[in-house]
């Protein structure tokens, strides 16, 4: 269990971090929210086979996020208006 715990926490941290690669506001927020909700939803999964499956899928998603985040960073040129308005840009 604890073996998977370390791996899961590393994956979680890397996924949240990968969201920051996206310069486009809406993608950045989505990657963050989707990763957070997926980990919350599955936090009580105890079947080791299921955990391995979820970790595999999570790592696949991490690779996509890292690739696409890098591409997005090169082509995103403008901010959405609320990013410049601090009262709205805070994340919940």
């Amino acid at each position, binding site marked *: 269990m604890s073996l998977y715990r370390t791996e899961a926490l590393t994956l979680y941290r890397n996924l949240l971090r990968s969201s920051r690669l*996206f*310069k*486009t*506001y*809406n*993608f950045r*927020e*989505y*990657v963050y*929210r*989707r990763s957070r*909700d997926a980990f919350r939803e599955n936090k009580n999964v105890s079947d080791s086979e299921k955990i391995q499956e979820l970790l595999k899928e999570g790592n696949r*998603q991490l690779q*996509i*996020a890292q*690739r*696409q*985040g890098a*591409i*997005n*960073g*090169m*082509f*995103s*040129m*403008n*901010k*959405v*208006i*609320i*990013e*410049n*308005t601090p009262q*709205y*840009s*805070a*994340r*919940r």
Partner: protein
Amino acid sequence: MASLLKNSTQRAVRPLCRFRGLASLPVYLDAQATNPTDPRVLDSMLPYLTEQYGNPHSRTHQYGWDSEKAVDKAREQIAGLINAHPKEIVFTSGATESNNTALKGVARFYKGKKKHIITTQTEHKCVLDSCRKLQEEGIDVTYLGVKKSGLIDLEEFEKAIRPDTVLASIMTVNNEIGVIQSIEEIGKICRKHKVFFHTDAAQAVGKIPIDVNAMNIDLLSISGHKIYGPKGVGALFVRRRPRVRLEAIISGGGQERGLRSGTVPSPLTVGLGAACEIASVEHAYDYEHAKRLSQKLVDGIQSRVGHIERNGDPQHTYPGCVNLSFSFIEGESLLMALKDIAISSGSACTSASLEPSYVLRALGSREDLAHSSIRFGIGRFTTESEIDYVIDKIEHHVNRLREMSPLWEMYQEGIDLSTIQWSQH
């Protein structure tokens, strides 16, 4: 020369723009017009836009085989989302082409025996326009009206079926008001009377569950960019058993079972397939997200502005489409004021005209309310902060415009606006 070379190779990747964030983009709330391509979709497409460029119809080399394999996988992914067989999926350029192919294809093929089509007044322009074209060719078309809720009357629909009715075309989710028709019941009625049933599901696929077998759908149109896929690609589901036969619009190499000639754009189909696969995993999560934000938006505007009316049935509606009418002000002036929010008064195709939407008029909305309507589209990438921003902006501008409105003044003085005789121009 050497130093030049060194310099140019040292800087690994140069972004398109180095000074980011100078201009600000409006908050995007027009999910019914189009949606951004999901990064996961783009990730699946890029190999086919770079290395694997083969023509999927080339049978003599690996480039072709690889592309063909990718197209077949996409076909399976699309079929999987709507519970169809992969062979029943035909790739097109979008939902407009799918609708054209379905309506004109069926009507022209069966023209000798049957020549009546039933549709509704609230369909998308491409369905209505295809019907007009068919009328010129001698096909009879019945345009069913809708109830105040935006739903069709099923009894009236059944009565409209004639012995020579070949096809009924009724959209699943309306693009302007988000109303979901009772597809399952309509499918049953069509099957009972042996009428082919086509549905334009551009706004529905991937957002609400669709099963072409359980719902007795014979033809179904899908759009790529409405489900976070690329623009320029769509699909048409054509049932094999009982077989639906079509006359193709485009002649050529006979691709797509002869129904749609022309090289299948493998990168786009791969993107559409990926979008469908993501939708089949994510639709419940996306639906909850849209529902939550939609509730927040409607409640926020209702409590802080008041005198609004939601167009269309509030129950049988996809929550990601919110169509509101603001009393005492004009929709166009509100749209102009809300330049930092990307919204529209109706469908993108008709957004250039100042005419009130024909969909709202079909619902029997009062002319003034049809003129003051705005559609808010919430999607996968909409955030809660954006909704907060939109509610604040709406409150500010609606109050400001009402302060200037003579109608608002009259209302405050207690004059019933519906009793006023407006002069004719």
